[in-house]
């Protein structure tokens, strides 16, 4: 659990790894009733990268985020953030700041906004208290909020403004890593765009690393450099955003992308393709591939042998955990009847 060098064998995304996760398993509850919310996840996130984790409710994506933040202890494996392990020196604010999904619950309803924003500064003595308010106002202006917001309380401002406030607070500690849990899902589409643009411009200015967790592919994918797809506690596909979104390899990723409703003039022209069934109950352990009960391509082998993430997909760094990805790609390339996703040739 001490700071160590990343083995060269692990595919790294960038020159320097901001986050290095090795064989991470997070378990809730103990003994036979324990549920693994994250199982055997190995991934690196490069410094300055925007890394998106997508998946359905209960896939373990938020738990993975919490593990990176050090909010849940790993049952096995290691999480290193800027070469400091979860139990090591870099904890709390220095490790990464979290922006949560529902800003209503993330802000103290009885404190004026500026106090919420300045809160991360107090225990670390980065500023003397007299100038705290000014610092908070500076941070607020950085996220596009005027100083009249500073003395209001959370119920007096709109949802989009609240989310900006939580972003300002995350910036306050000067942490190089920001962890965003569904940062825009609770917002209107028009606000989502402006919040994401804000996040991107702040990232450019400060050289931040982002890990974004979302169930909504459309909302976050446009801003991500790399995308990891999680299903039932496991990573099933990982790669550059352009690769994963335009040529997904895993049947689950295909289904996830096909489910996004498109804007169509003809109602029946391109219906969102529902994915059948419900996500599996994490309490029930299944042998083989966890997606096979919902997978249209499942064969006998999928029931007996659990697929591992494969590296040899031809495209650099694009990994997939599926026995049949190669066959499926060939089939869907020749016939367009299978779940069709991604950009169409014009």
């Amino acid at each position: 659990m001490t700071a160590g060098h990343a083995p060269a064998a692990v595919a790294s995304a960038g020159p320097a790894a901001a986050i290095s996760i090795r064989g991470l398993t997070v378990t809730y509850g103990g003994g036979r009733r324990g549920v693994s919310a994250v199982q055997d996840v190995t991934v690196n996130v490069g410094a300055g990268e925007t890394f998106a984790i997508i998946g359905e409710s209960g896939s373990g994506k938020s738990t993975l985020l919490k593990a990176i933040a050090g909010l849940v202890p790993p049952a096995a494996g290691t999480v290193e953030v800027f070469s400091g392990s979860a139990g090591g020196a870099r904890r709390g604010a220095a490790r990464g700041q979290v922006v949560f999904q529902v800003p209503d619950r993330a802000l103290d309803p009885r404190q004026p906004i500026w106090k919420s924003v300045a809160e991360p500064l107090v225990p670390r003595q980065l500023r003397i208290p007299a100038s705290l308010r000014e610092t908070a106002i500076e941070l607020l202006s950085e996220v596009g909020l005027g100083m009249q917001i500073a003395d209001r309380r959370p119920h007096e401002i709109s949802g989009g403004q609240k989310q900006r406030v939580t972003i300002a607070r995350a910036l306050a500690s000067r942490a190089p890593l920001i962890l965003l849990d569904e940062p825009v899902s609770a917002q209107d589409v028009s606000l989502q765009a402006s919040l994401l643009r804000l996040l991107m411009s702040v990232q450019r200015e400060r050289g931040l690393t982002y890990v974004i967790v979302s169930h909504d592919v459309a909302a976050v994918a446009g801003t991500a450099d790399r995308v990891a797809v999680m299903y039932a506690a496991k990573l099933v596909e990982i790669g550059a955003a352009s690769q994963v979104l335009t040529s997904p390899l895993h049947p689950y990723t295909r289904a996830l992308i096909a489910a996004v409703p498109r804007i169509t003039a003809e109602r029946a022209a391109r219906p969102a393709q529902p994915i059948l069934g419900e996500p599996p109950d994490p309490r029930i352990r299944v042998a083989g591939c966890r997606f096979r009960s919902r997978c249209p391509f499942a064969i006998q082998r999928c029931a007996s042998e659990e697929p591992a993430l494969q590296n040899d997909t031809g495209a650099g760094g694009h990994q997939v955990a599926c026995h049949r990805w190669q066959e499926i790609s060939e089939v869907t390339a020749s016939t367009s009847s299978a779940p069709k996703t991604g950009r169409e040739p014009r």
Partner: protein
Amino acid sequence: MTAATPGGDSLLAVTGLRLTLGPATLLDDITLSVQRGEVVGLVGESGSGKTLTGLSVLGLVPHGAHVSGSIRFAGTELLGAAPAVLRATRGDQIGMIFQEPRSSLNPVLPVGRQIVDVIRAHRVMNRREAGATALSLLDQVGLPSPRNCFGAYPHELSGGMCQRAMIAMALACDPSLLIADEPTTSLDVTVQAQIISLLRSIADERGLSVLLITHNLAVVTQVCDRVITMYCGQVVNIDSTHRVVAAPSHPYTWALVSSGRQQLAAAELTEPRPTGPDLSEAHLAGPELTGQPANPEQPPPGCRFHPRCPFAEERCAQAVPEMTVLNGNQTRCLRHAELRLEAGIR
């Protein structure tokens, strides 16, 4: 149960609906209709009054609100109707689905029992018959094992299953109008696609009219025949889904369609939008909806959208534009004739 509609086949006709709460006019001159068997989308940002419009139809307005105008449902005036009349209409002829399925269900009663209660509140039926009806409803909404769900408590079901149960409950008395308020917003994208296709097939099979309230235009284009756009307590645009997508007649609708499109395009989930004749680079570069939605408590003078409108002129700030009817669609824009808001579809 009520008198036949005198002429016309509007199932629901709202005329000049105005709702004031204290000094604020939250709904101003709302005129809209839903035909028999028609699926209509009601879109707008948070705070535009779309939910309040839906609730007003059911007579569920906030305490102290003053409502005027007319709400005719199947020929019966609902506004100012006796509580007994409203009680008999709600849940019987008009079903309602709310955004958060889990908080709409009673946590301490099994789901089946709650549906039985709805049926027995409106129909003379014994428990056994009502139970059989409830079971068949749970089956019709596609729940995997209706018998298990019948006896299950809401916490034992997933979000998508709860929403299916809510739909079953709303359909329990075979209503002719279903008001669905953000039925998919709190659900995963994959489950959302399931619920969208369920709503559409139910509407088609039963000849049910649906008023679908949502901020997600992509969802609307998937299921609706017609789109009503609200902004700051006013209806600003009513048009067929086809024209809303292809050539919106109000800048706000156009901006909503564009921001939805841009999000999908950024995520490489749709074809890039071809440039329309009157779209400058500036309009394509970023979502047009900058700034906060107008506050209905202090609406801006003139057209309420003009502070955010890229096409606003001086006259737009002077008087509230009247609703103009032009070949079947309605728009509240002074410049509708000169603007060619082509959103560009393939």
